[in-house]
């Protein structure tokens, strides 16, 4: 049963949720668009917000996160887990492409060994999706199996229908949130369908990923192609650190005289020292690193989890300093002369 909430009531709704949850909403206060603690009244983001620069994954796999603290006394070392914060997070305004990316990350962090830090935050979080009405030129989510208003990976989904939002309840957690909201009328529903259609058609960038896994498999050793693709890449970390489906991390200690903390922080396969071993570095050449980045998402992840680890959010295209465009690269992966097997 869909509900309805007017845009004017959003601030009030967020305050209600604020009693139970630590409400996070898109904000530019820090100087860049990112999810941040909601200041309690400002809902101007409903106008300017298209998508954040720092993806919502940063709330679950933070750029830097305490793993445990260690200290030394007479008997020796002892380890204490980081202070537990029971605060439940409510992410308001997560886009469908980022929500789908969270589902893709879940697969890795639950596979075989359960990652305690990430999964605990995920369990304690509620995702309130917000349908896109003004997709970016670099967005290509419709080619990656999702859409600007896809509600599968969120708890409730808000679809913009003029001066109000249609509220689609998706999970039980979602149903609790929408208690007390008015029922949606029939023409609200048709209005929502229309808004979904217009948003869908606004996506201009298309990408044909049919058979990409095999094409990449065949051209894996085509050094000439990968060198050409990697020529302008400067091995910085933007397209991986800010990618919602990237999860690589590094583990480091900071300590002072035997007392300190072990941290987990973002890392990128684009960096030259990522796989450096004392004796050799299997990926010291740039083209191998660019190949790893592309193949991990479009070949290895599909081989392991049967899904392409890319949701078409377009961040890597619009934030790259040299305009390296993943959609152009995927299209230019050579088709071996014997054609699709």
């Amino acid at each position, binding site marked *: 049963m869909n509900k309805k909430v007017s845009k004017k009531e959003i601030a009030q709704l967020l305050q209600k949720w604020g009693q139970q949850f630590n409400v996070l909403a898109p904000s530019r206060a820090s100087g860049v668009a990112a999810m941040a603690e909601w200041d309690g009244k400002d809902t101007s983001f409903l106008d300017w917000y298209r998508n954040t620069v720092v993806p919502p994954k940063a709330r679950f796999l933070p750029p830097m996160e305490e793993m445990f603290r*260690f200290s030394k006394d007479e008997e020796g*070392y002892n380890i204490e887990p980081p202070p537990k914060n029971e605060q439940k997070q409510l992410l308001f305004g997560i886009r469908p492409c980022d929500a789908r990316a969270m589902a893709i990350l879940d697969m890795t962090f639950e*596979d075989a*060994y359960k990652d305690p830090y990430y999964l605990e935050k995920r369990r304690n979080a509620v995702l309130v999706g917000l349908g896109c009405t003004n997709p970016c030129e670099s967005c290509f989510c419709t080619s990656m199996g999702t859409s600007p208003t896809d509600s599968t990976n969120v708890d409730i989904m808000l679809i913009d229908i003029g001066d109000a939002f249609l509220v689609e309840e998706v999970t039980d957690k979602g149903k609790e949130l929408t208690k007390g909201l008015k029922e949606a009328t029939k023409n609200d529903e048709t209005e929502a369908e229309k808004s979904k259609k217009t948003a869908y058609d606004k996506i201009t960038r298309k990408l044909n990923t049919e058979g990409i896994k095999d094409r990449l498999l065949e051209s*894996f050793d085509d050094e000439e192609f990968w060198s050409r693709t990697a020529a302008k890449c400067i091995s910085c970390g933007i397209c991986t650190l800010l990618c919602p489906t990237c999860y690589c991390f*590094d583990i480091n200690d900071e*300590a002072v005289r035997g007392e300190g903390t072990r941290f987990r922080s973002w890392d990128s396969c684009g960096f030259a020292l990522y796989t450096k071993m004392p004796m050799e570095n299997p*990926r010291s050449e740039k083209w191998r690193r660019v190949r790893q980045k592309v193949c991990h998402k479009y070949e*290895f992840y599909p*081989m392991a989890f049967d899904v392409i680890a890319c949701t078409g959010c377009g961040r890597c295209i619009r934030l790259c300093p040299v305009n390296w465009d993943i959609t152009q690269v995927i299209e230019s992966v050579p088709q071996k002369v014997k054609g699709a097997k």
Partner: protein
Amino acid sequence: MTISDIEKRPQFFAQDNVYTPHIAVIEKIIEETPGVRTFHFNFKDKKLAKEFRFESGQFGQYSVFGLGEATFCISSSPTRPDHLEFAVQRVGRVTNALHRLGVGAEIGFRGPYGNSFPLDDLKGKNLVFVGGGIGLAPLRSLIWNVVDNRDTYNKVVIVYGARTPADLCFRYDLEAWDKDKTINMVTTIDREAEGWTGKVGMVPNVLGEVAPSAKDAVAIVCGPPIMIRFTFPVLEKLGFRPAQMLTTLEKRMKCGIGKCGRCNIGDVYVCRDGPVFSYEQIKNFASSEY
């Protein structure tokens, strides 16, 4: 060769967190070569020390608190559970810190991670061990495992080499295996060195001379990647099929459980799906960058 199912592997999490290490105390340090030391250690938590089980070929993440973690295989054999051993070559930040530790110092250990040598596939087979330098550490765990229940295995040939006599690790093992009549122990060094009476020559060439028969035999190769790349062709010439050749691959590892994303070859994570692979598996990896 089956990669043992991950869930079935013994797991010993501290504070039910896969990343939290157990505290262990260093009981003994052996100076193998100027750059390599073997550490004997045991867990402070006595109950854990008794319960802890692992299989030859598995590795662990060793923490020097304040400096970080490093990956080393467990070089002692599961058949001798009174303590655990690992060998460290002094090459970087954590390894140098380890070399500065004395007996009684405390380190962190989490594991065991990775798969192991498939013991049941080796039963009744002739075993050919090919090791180079510190590469003997993972082999050593398997060799003592084999020696401790010797009769379940057939002939054993060990070809081990290092650059110079001073670089030979685990000399006390080499002597023990040499005395053992049922083991054909061949030790070699790369180039002539005065005072050295044994064999001289690179490990792959010496293996060619020893020429163990490939009939229902399995070869286990560990050493620097360059040595592995030259050893496989020699084994193939001797008639070993790729499935009969095992090795442990070396990659930069941080988490050890297939999460941090850096030790992959194609869709395979060396830390979780390896480090023990057969040459057959290596041949049809999705990518050629092993």
